[in-house]
């Protein structure tokens, strides 16, 4: 018995040493707590990231000692701390937060905290985290680069588009019908290039959280009217009827961003034109309601196959029935529209039947507060 007991102690010691070595060799910061959230172990990388000595943290209550902040520099409530959520749910939680270092500096970290469960009861937690300052800086630089590159690409495009329009409109004298047709092809191509640049730019800004909202009161039907004027040429080339109706008596004004709103409407109408057969119809209806404004973009085009409905708003998704017939889509438009609407506190959904057409609906709330990050 004595030998067995000694063996068990040796084995336990070995396991403890292995766990210690494993914990200390994790390439990211790691903190272990007991069931009450008191720090029981902390690895050298965590100490280095947070700027503490081990003796200053061991035995301390983790949520109090290491303050977590949100984007707005406000301390996150205990109930919303990832470790609390992990204890309450019994599951791993991954989040980005900001930690306050010992010297007071604010540090962005990506963390995963997992409860240690024994018979389904949490007896502690282990949090692994890494400093993402450099990643955020690279993201910011990437956004700046895309923004600058987009601007530089657009400047010559603006000149091509403006002069082509001027030629068509007769500012430089008469042009023949054949010449006008060629100029419209040039305008159409510059429009497509512009759309692509806008899409890439806006996706980058949404994903990095740097899109800027300039909110003011505006009428959605007027914004839709302006978009339709820009897209009439594309519609007429396919002999598609493009109509706008303001339905109901309630106001269609909301406090929102004019350019983002037009980007949303433009994407939906462009899609409807693109995926509707020649001679079809695209109807835009703007309806003011009590608490929001509902915009409907309906076409009688190819429709979306039922098995693709779940993926319509996914990045790079294109339905099989469109890939075969229309090669210019990127699969980014609806992903962007959804992201932009979320940023404006709006909602989007659709109804579609293959071969009959698709109707997209979106709403924007009349009363809301839009904040920039």
């Amino acid at each position, binding site marked *: 018995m004595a030998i067995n007991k000694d063996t068990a102690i040796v084995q336990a010691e070995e396991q403890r040493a292995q766990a210690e070595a494993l914990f200390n060799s994790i390439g990211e910061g790691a903190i272990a707590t007991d069931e009450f959230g008191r720090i029981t172990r902390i690895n050298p990388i965590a100490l280095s990231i947070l700027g503490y000595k081990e003796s200053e943290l061991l035995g301390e209550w983790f949520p109090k000692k290491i303050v977590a902040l949100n984007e707005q520099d406000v301390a996150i409530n205990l109930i919303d701390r990832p470790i609390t959520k992990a204890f309450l749910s019994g599951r791993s939680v991954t989040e980005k937060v900001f930690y306050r270092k010992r010297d007071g500096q604010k540090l962005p970290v990506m963390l995963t905290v997992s409860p240690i469960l024994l018979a389904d009861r949490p007896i502690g937690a282990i949090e692994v985290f890494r400093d993402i300052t450099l990643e955020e800086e690279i993201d910011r630089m990437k956004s700046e680069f895309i923004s600058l590159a987009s*601007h530089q690409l657009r*400047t010559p495009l603006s000149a091509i588009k403006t002069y082509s329009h*001027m030629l068509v409109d007769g500012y430089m004298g008469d042009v023949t019908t054949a010449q006008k047709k060629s100029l419209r092809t040039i305008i159409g191509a*510059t429009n497509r290039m512009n759309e692509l640049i806008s899409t890439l730019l806006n996706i980058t800004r949404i994903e990095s959280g740097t*899109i800027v909202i300039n909110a003011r009161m505006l009428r959605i039907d007027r914004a839709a009217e302006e978009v339709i004027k820009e897209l009439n040429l594309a519609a007429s080339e396919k002999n598609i009827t493009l109509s706008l109706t303001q339905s109901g008596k309630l106001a269609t004004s909301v406090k929102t961003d004019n350019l983002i709103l037009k980007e949303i409407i433009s994407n939906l109408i462009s899609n409807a034109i693109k995926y509707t057969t020649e001679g079809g119809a695209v109807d835009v209806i703007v309806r003011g309601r009590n608490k929001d404004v509902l915009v409907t973009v309906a076409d009688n085009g190819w429709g979306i196959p039922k098995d693709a409905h779940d993926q319509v708003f996914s990045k790079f998704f294109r339905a099989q029935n469109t890939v075969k017939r229309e090669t210019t889509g990127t699969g980014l438009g609806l992903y962007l529209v959804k992201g932009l609407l979320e940023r404006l506190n709006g909602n989007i959904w659709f109804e579609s039947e293959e071969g009959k057409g698709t109707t997209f609906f979106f709403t924007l709330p009349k009363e809301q507060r839009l904040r920039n990050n």
Partner: protein
Amino acid sequence: MANILIVEDDKDLNNAYSIILSSQDHTVESAFDGQEALDKLKTFKPDLILLDLLMPIMGGLEFLQHFDLKTHPAVKVLIFTNMENSPEVAESYKLGAHRCIIKSWTAPHNLARVINEALESNSVQAAV
């Protein structure tokens, strides 16, 4: 019609807007950066300024800081840029810009329409 100052460093675009707006019977002056615009404003009194943001020597935002719109309430400034949804556009609104138009999206007839709408809102305010 109205007096319009175009502030745009791209010579081709500046020339194009000048042709379009002159054909609408507006009196048009051109400047190619913010500093040149400030110099022109010593003698030219515009009803509307079409202002680019990214320009050499003096950009649009710096121009707006110098040309205080609070002291020129009758002048409308339309920002004409390719940097939509950017912090620069947000800043231009804070400095009193009336509206922002994206160059590469805007066809000449739409530019003329937006300018006329802005000028009409000027006259309404003047009447009030």
